[in-house]
């Protein structure tokens, strides 16, 4: 199918904006994965499950407050903490005993965690589709560049960079953040100067879970919350982290932008195969820079 409409500035502009807003969600989730990868050196395949728990928790909190706008904001704020708590429990009870083991074991542990969390979500929330609604102020669309742009996406465009900045400050300017980054580069040294590396890892993992939960809560109003959400997001965030540079937060941002924008433009240029565009972009980046666009942390 050839281009159905002209490449007007308006058209391109809208697609760019939509791609950017999609990239924001991807970034929030991918940054969590990247951080865990950087500090703990393990790709967490359960990251998607945590994202899913974030969405489901947002649903429960939203409903607890009767589906009101207050419920929505509370859901957005509290759901990440719920997920962080889940992560903390998993990490302190099981994960932390495995840190001396080889990476493969850790990866397989996260896979086991994914299996378990997936079924736990089913047991806890059942198999029905769930839905939450953004408050009135964020519904509908506004005219932008001659086309309509959903207000919620605008919201994402604002929140995304805020999260990125917050994350930057948290990891670069706070003591715990700096220690975590140091541990990513050289954990032995950090241990040698007397810091309990195990707690640093716990912190990193919990932060990763928090971000996954935040991503899940933020995406919840735009989709139907269902089992199976965990599988979809995992591969996307893995690819993003790979092309961004393992463990590099800015790399996660760049990767998310590439992914979100190529998919959005793919819809414009070749709607049938739009989903393949991000993968192709990934392959191109990796052929050119096999270790990712930015330097990995280690």
């Amino acid at each position: 199918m050839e281009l159905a409409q002209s490449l007007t500035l308006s058209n391109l502009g809208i697609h760019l904006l939509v791609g950017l807003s999609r990239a924001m969600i991807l970034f929030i989730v991918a940054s969590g994965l990247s951080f865990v990868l950087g500090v703990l050196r393990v790709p967490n395949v359960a990251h998607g499950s945590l994202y899913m728990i974030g969405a489901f928790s947002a649903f429960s909190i939203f409903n607890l407050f009767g589906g009101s706008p207050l419920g929505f904001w509370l859901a957005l704020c509290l759901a990440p903490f719920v997920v962080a708590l889940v992560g903390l429990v998993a990490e302190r009870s099981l994960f932390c005993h495995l840190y001396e083991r080889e990476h493969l074991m850790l990866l397989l542990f996260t896979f086991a965690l994914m299996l378990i969390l997936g079924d736990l979500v089913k047991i806890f929330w059942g198999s029905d589709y769930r839905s939450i609604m953004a408050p009135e102020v964020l519904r509908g669309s506004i005219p932008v560049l001659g086309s309509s742009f959903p207000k919620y996406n605008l919201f994402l465009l604002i929140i995304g960079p805020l999260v990125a900045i917050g994350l930057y400050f948290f990891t670069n300017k706070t003591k715990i953040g700096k220690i975590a980054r140091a541990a990513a580069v050289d954990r032995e040294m950090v241990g040698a100067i007397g810091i309990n590396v195990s707690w640093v890892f716990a912190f990193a993992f919990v932060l990763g879970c928090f971000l996954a939960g935040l991503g899940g809560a933020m995406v919840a109003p735009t989709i139907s919350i269902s089992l199976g959400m965990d599988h979809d997001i995992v591969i996307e965030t893995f690819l993003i982290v790979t092309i961004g540079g393992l463990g590099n937060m800015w790399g996660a941002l760049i990767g998310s932008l590439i992914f979100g924008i190529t998919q959005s433009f793919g819809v414009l240029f070749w709607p049938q195969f739009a989903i393949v565009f991000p993968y192709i972009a990934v392959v191109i980046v990796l052929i050119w820079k096999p270790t990712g666009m930015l330097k990995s942390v280690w």
Partner: protein
Amino acid sequence: MKKTGSFMGFIFILTVCLLAASFAFLPAHAQARDIKVGILDAYTGPAAVFANDALKAFKLALEEINKEGVLGKKIEFVTRDTKFKVDIGLNMAKELVMREDVDLIVGTINSGVALAVSDAISKKEKVPFIVWISKSENITGKKGHRYVFSTADNTAMGGRSGAYALSRKPYKTYWIAGDDYSYGHDLANTAWEKLKAAKPDVEKIGESWWKPGEPDLIPYLTNIMTAKPDAVIFCTGGLSMANVLKAVKTTGMAEKFPIWVHTATDHAVLKPLGADAPEGVMGTMHYHFYYPEIPENKAFVDAFKAAYGEPPGFPAFNAYVTAKLIAEAYRKAGAVDKEKFVDALEGLKVDTPIGMLEMRACDHQMVYPIFLGVTKKLPQYDFAVSSDIVTLPGTEMLPTCEEIQKARSAQ
């Protein structure tokens, strides 16, 4: 730790072996043989809600049927979870047939599973298979055979009903979009083919296809809206239905463009959206718990509500019809014999909540009327419903027997 580690390891292996062995050797069948139905469905994954809906109604129907009994026996069932995956579906189907020794298989919502099981097990092992949610028209169409039946609506019906609805509207240019898998494509192809035949001056100005279950449909919808078609056709399956309607609402598309989506008026889709469902979207569906308001439907809905606390959806309806068919077919056949059962099912008419319906003999497809309506919010419900309903006769919404014959012989 080494010694305890080894010991723990040993205990672990022992436990796993015992676990596996105990499951393997658990008796697979109680004897004094009742009629055994094997239900194959996706109780895990995004389609689970439909599978559970169907199971509930099937149980309800069996309670009624077993009071009277069939040929002096009860109908019992076992379930197997396919997890929406074809390889597990095949494994489980073979387990049902070879180990559980079921008299027939019912179920599936994943058309890939349905087609695989239909070919590898139903046809090969000569076991009757009644598909109750999977919607590929190929199941009773070109891939149909003696042993497979369908009590589900399919893409042929959906496409034709959409074409019927749209051919009566003045729209000329269309955009077609949907889930990039067989369901979406078949629906689109049938709808467009029939629409074009009825109204030759319609024009397709674009197509968009996304991954089934794709959460982020805003870019696609934005693209469509900028193209400004007269009307839009969405061909989405269960996984994306709610996402599409949500996106339609968020982008405000429904207010600016006429839209038709097969199953948009389905309760399972509209319920979770609640007050946030878009209004004015044309939809087609073969079952609503609130229409037609005849005593049979009301009785079914009341019984279902009493048992499960909520009204039945279309999977429940399909499963209920399936249970009725099974009971009636065995009674007609006079024996628990697979071949006689198949013969009895062909052309069988049963009483359903929406009236007397027929299992068409030539292709083994249940003939359902299609209810064409528009989404609307009514004060008495906190979800949207289908309104201004027009009933499209079932036989006109299906391929003719000749067309089916032709498609099958071309295989």
